């Protein structure tokens, strides 16, 4: 597989930035893990480290999705991108804005008083989880996303090939852009603040992002296994449909305890209990398609794609549903159980999604059919095994916390600093294992297609 349109190469800029941010995010995650053991470790306090850890994650996933979209849309539209200079401008504008925001966080970490009010909004950090970026940066992000959407819609309009995959992909991206807006106004009530904040966070990760994931999963299965478009697209519609049917009102599971009316316990409980269903259909879809494929050249690409489907279900689905019912959530809400779910869900649903898109499309961008796949498998196992143990240790910590703090009434600090200490130590060690996996992946990213292929596999010869 090689690229058909020169402009698809722009994807590589976005991938590179995403991959480097991924490395930074995980390195910062280890600092955060050590701060659980020793809070005054490092020059920046935990709040800044955590803001960097989760913001780097969100940004690199978004940048990765943009790269993937710039690859998919010309391919599906069978034409060059509407404007390459615009895409390049959008890329560099994003890099500069992100760098400015990061420097702002660090500045605030060194001098908390620097986070002053400017025109009624915070200069450096809005102090709202995940959407810490100040308002001026919000506006730049919106402009960047609008430019990005414009470029892709104009590309589609050139040939008007409204394939299901790219329609769903761009629909999901438009939904994503719209759902950033509820986080862009100030409310005096913390209840309303969190109410709208969840619109952003939930309707991103359990709404629009899953729609995008469904579209990209369909694209990758089609490219890697050569299965028919009609079949993957039909299942894609069913999957993303179920994602939104359950996910939109599944938002209710965040409205149990934040001061919102009691009927959300019913709405959230019922719909979020069904949220794993579409993710399970995706797993089944991935396996069914893979079984039908006789010859697969890009084994690593397929491997990551199927792993993404599996861990999307395990992380976002299973680890979410265990504490989604209000009767359980009453005790686990706000504990490390949520952290465990967050880690496995983001890894399975989105980290592996972007990595699989890279493995499926990068060889073509670099113009090679075959590449040395051994590092891809090595990094996969380092990352996946480490992440499984990270999640198990945090889940253990969450169970201890739920039992001792919430059920027995022990003090938060006592539980954290004594009973859970071993879990923090083990988590930090597995964190280093994850960093090693990411290191292997980053090396692989820069090497793919730029070194000789060692031995050609029999399957590839036949192909």
């Amino acid at each position, binding site marked *: 597989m090689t690229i058909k349109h020169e402009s698809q190469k722009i994807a590589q800029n976005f991938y590179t930035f995403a991959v480097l941010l991924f490395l930074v995010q995980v390195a910062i995650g280890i600092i955060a893990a050590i*701060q659980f053991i020793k*809070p*005054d470790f490092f020059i920046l*306090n*935990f*709040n*800044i480290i*955590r*803001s960097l850890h989760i913001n780097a994650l969100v940004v690199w996933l978004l940048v990765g999705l943009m790269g993937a979209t710039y690859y998919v849309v010309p391919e599906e539209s069978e034409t060059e991108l509407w404007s390459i200079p615009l895409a390049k401008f959008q890329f560099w504008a994003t890099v500069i804005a992100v760098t400015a925001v990061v420097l702002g966080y660090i500045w*605030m970490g060194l001098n908390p008083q620097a*986070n002053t*009010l400017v025109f009624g909004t*915070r200069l450096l*950090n809005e*102090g709202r*989880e995940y959407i*810490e970026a100040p308002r001026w940066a919000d506006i730049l992000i919106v402009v960047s996303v609008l430019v990005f959407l414009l470029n892709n819609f104009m590309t589609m309009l050139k040939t008007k090939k409204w394939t*299901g995959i790219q329609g*769903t992909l761009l629909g999901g991206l438009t939904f994503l852009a719209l759902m950033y807006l509820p986080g862009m106004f100030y409310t*005096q*009530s*913390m*209840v309303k*603040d*969190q*109410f709208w*904040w969840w619109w952003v966070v939930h309707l991103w990760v359990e709404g629009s992002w899953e729609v995008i994931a469904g579209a990209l999963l369909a694209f990758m299965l089609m490219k890697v296994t050569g299965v028919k478009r*009609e079949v993957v*697209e*039909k299942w894609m*519609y069913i999957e*993303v*449909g179920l994602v*939104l*049917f359950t996910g*939109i*009102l599944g*938002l209710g599971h965040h409205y*149990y*305890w*934040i*001061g*919102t*009316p*009691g*009927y*959300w*316990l019913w709405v959230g409980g019922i719909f979020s209990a069904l949220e794993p269903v579409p993710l399970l259909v995706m797993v089944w879809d991935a396996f069914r398609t893979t079984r039908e494929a006789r010859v697969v050249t890009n084994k690593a690409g397929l491997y990551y794609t199927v792993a993404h489907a599996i861990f999307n279900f395990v992380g976002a689905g299973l680890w979410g549903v265990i504490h989604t019912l209000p009767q359980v959530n*009453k005790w686990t*809400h*706000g504990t490390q159980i949520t*952290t465990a779910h967050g880690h496995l869900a983001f890894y399975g649903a989105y980290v592996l999604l972007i990595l699989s898109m890279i493995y499926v499309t990068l060889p073509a961008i670099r113009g090679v059919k075959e590449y040395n796949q051994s590092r891809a498998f090595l990094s996969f196992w380092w990352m996946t095994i480490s992440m499984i143990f990270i999640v198990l240790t945090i889940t253990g910590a969450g169970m201890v916390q739920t039992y001792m*703090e*919430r059920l*027995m*009434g*022990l*003090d*938060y*600090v006592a539980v954290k600093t004594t009973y859970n200490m071993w879990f923090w130590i083990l988590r930090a060690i597995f964190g280093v294992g994850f960093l090693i996996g990411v290191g292997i992946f980053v090396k692989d990213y820069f090497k793919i297609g730029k070194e000789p292929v060692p031995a050609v596999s029999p399957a590839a010869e036949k192909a």
Partner: protein
Amino acid sequence: MSNKAARNLFIFGSLFFFVILVILTFDTLAKLPKRAPEITEEVNAGKMVWHKYDCIGCHTILGNGSYFAPDMTKVTERKPKEYLKQFLMDPKSVNPKASMPKFGITSEEAEKLIAFLDWISKVDTNGWPPKPILATAAGVAGRELTSGQRLYQSLGCSNCHMINGIGGTTGPDLTHVGSKKDRVWLFGHFKDPKAYVPNSVMPGFGHLSEQELNDLTDYMIALK
């Protein structure tokens, strides 16, 4: 099912559920004012302070946040305000083991923040956080409590102090307090903590009756 039918089901089904969400949102926003006290200027100013220092980067509030430090939803019910104020301005001065750094929070900022946290503690959260089972179960199932123990519970002493591993870490551990302090010290300290420990942020309990103070002191003495 044809692809077109699947596509239409996806689009119109999703729109249907989104419309329901919008309707529920309107209903919820209309009901919110009745579920919390009025927001005064001071409460709003306190919320701004909360954002300024990125408190959510470590703490949770209404259970949402960073899980690194205690939840702040009911903190003003659990800790004396004077303690909170001093802690916010200089955490280690009142609790040497505190992990929280000194951010340079001013006295006015601390007061506004406490007003905001007080507002949060009065929001109707459908019963969250639930009372720990052990705290609810104490004194039932034939375990008769002494009047000192009952007072210890009803006054919320365990919010700050620990006995046998149960209770807060804000104040000193009381597990063996009976072998460290005598009756006169304990009795006098309850009435006016600052007279015995100059930097103390413990509220005085001079408003209690002589009998109640004696009961509490008896309980403390028994903790050998």
